[in-house]
């Protein structure tokens, strides 16, 4: 087993949650890497969809944006954007919506809109893009992000997309019949919502990670499952697949390396 970074562990843990049967609406950055590692290892038949309209895409290198040419070149078909949102997302055909977050609360609500007040923002973030409807129209939602107190907060500044709201049956009360966030994969742990309260609960710690490390990088008091597991470390295949993918990506995006590493999401 080689050494691996927390970020690599995050991506690989996320990839394991995906199957060949999934139809996955992919955000850029960590979600995109995880989805493609899954495709290149245990889930070769997974369908990856990017909101630019590319359906069943199989990029050889990770896209820098949701509209890279590589996505279209390797897709089964590329449809107009209105069709993507009407027939494919709203039509209920997406099994997994895979999102990142700037701010996240313990009920899986996401903010990528503003830090501070909406009318007078301290930081104007890019906005929701596809997220508001991905969060409610996908069969379930997986979230992946690196932990930090700035990112994982008690109270998000803006509800860009709805997770479990105030917890419990809040989704149902709004008439939303999809499952919402069912999985959170960070660089330190795997989290699942409590069946009743829907509060994200740590169910597995990545190798070498302690409860304290999770709590120190999270803005709310963390709940841990009674039977806390340890995430299996990356296998050789997983790690080499991810690293080869990143290397191919860096080579292809001459001058684009930093962005690929930063893995910035775009709309």
């Amino acid at each position, binding site marked *: 087993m080689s050494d691996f970074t927390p970020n690599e562990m995050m991506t690989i843990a996320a990839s394991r949650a995906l199957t060949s049967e999934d139809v996955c609406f992919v955000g*850029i950055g960590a979600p995109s890497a995880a989805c493609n590692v899954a495709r290149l290892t245990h889930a070769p038949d997974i369908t990856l969809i990017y909101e*630019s*309209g*590319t359906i069943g895409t199989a990029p050889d290198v990770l*896209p*820098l*944006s*949701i*509209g*890279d*040419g590589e*996505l*279209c070149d390797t897709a089964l078909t*590329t449809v*107009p*954007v*209105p069709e*993507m*949102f*009407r027939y494919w*997302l*709203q039509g209920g055909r997406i099994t997994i919506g895979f999102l990142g977050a700037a701010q996240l609360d313990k009920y899986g609500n996401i903010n990528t*809109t503003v830090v501070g007040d*909406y*009318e007078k*923002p*301290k*930081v*104007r*973030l*890019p*906005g*929701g*893009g*596809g997220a*508001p*409807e991905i969060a*409610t129209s996908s069969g379930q939602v997986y979230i992946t992000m690196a932990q930090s107190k700035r990112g994982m907060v008690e109270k998000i500044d*803006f*509800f*860009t*997309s*709805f997770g479990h*709201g105030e917890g419990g049956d*809040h*989704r149902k009360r*709004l*008439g*939303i019949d999809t499952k919402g966030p069912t999985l959170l994969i960070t660089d330190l742990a795997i989290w699942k919502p409590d069946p009743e309260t829907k509060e994200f609960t740590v169910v597995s710690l990545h190798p070498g990670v302690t409860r304290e490390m999770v709590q120190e990088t999270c803005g709310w008091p963390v709940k841990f499952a009674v039977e806390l597991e340890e995430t299996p470390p990356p296998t050789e295949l997983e790690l080499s697949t991810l690293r080869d993918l990143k290397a191919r990506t860096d080579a292809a*995006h*001459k*001058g*684009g390396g930093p*962005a*690929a590493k*930063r893995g*910035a*999401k*775009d*709309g």
Partner: protein
Amino acid sequence: MACFLPLSEAVKENLRDGDTAAFEGFTHLIPTAAAHEAIRQGVKDLTLVRMTPDVVYDQMIGMGMASRLVFSYAGNPGVGLLRRLRDAVENGWPRPVEIEEHSHAAMANAYEAGAAGLPCAVFRGYRGAELARVNPNIKSVTCPFTGEELAAVPAVRPDVTFIHAQKADKKGNVLVEGIVGIQKEAVLAAKRAVVTVEEVVEDFSGLHPNLCVLPHWTVTAISVVPGGAHPSYTHGYYARDNAAYLEWDEVAADRERFRAWMEENVMKAGPDDFAGRVAGLRAA
């Protein structure tokens, strides 16, 4: 009826102060040359519409051309935030920009409704999302059969839409290929439409029957601008200039550097400069 015009004339005849204008493109086929021409002509008080305002909107906003922005995701694709937009929204520099913010689904449906001649778009959206609280243009209608409450937004109907496309034929029919995005809808939703193209071909005979073709009578003006989407890309012609997007992040970080860059690369440049910018990005 499409007429072929130099880009400066196409912009002058079709973009006016105070217009609602869409320069559409979804990462692919962004009409940069048209946006730069608009900047050179100093058009003012625009309402800029776009699902994914990126570098060219950052530039137009930074030059003080926009009083309002209608959008669903404002980012430098693959890089991060738009620094000129932030400066305008957070600090009012060089002028305040009013914001009407939607989700992608809403914007896509709103363009589709515009193309379809409807006053509004109806879709299942914004459930639990806070934009519905801060944007008065998000309302609802009730399905008369099931009682379900659906979201409604006004149709997008720009005064003028600019897009970049692969090619036109001599009659002025336009072909868009690859990631077609929202461009067809943006053209059909607009009162006027200006298209920059990589090249003009004799005719479109032999094309597959189901491609995205805009008939010449849906287009107001066509300008031939090879490379006109740079630093975005044109499927089949040249690749995306990822380095330029990274560079922009640094240029836009500073007001003075931004202005100097604009002076050098936009104000003193012209449509003919785009071909050279993509020379190294064409497939071997």
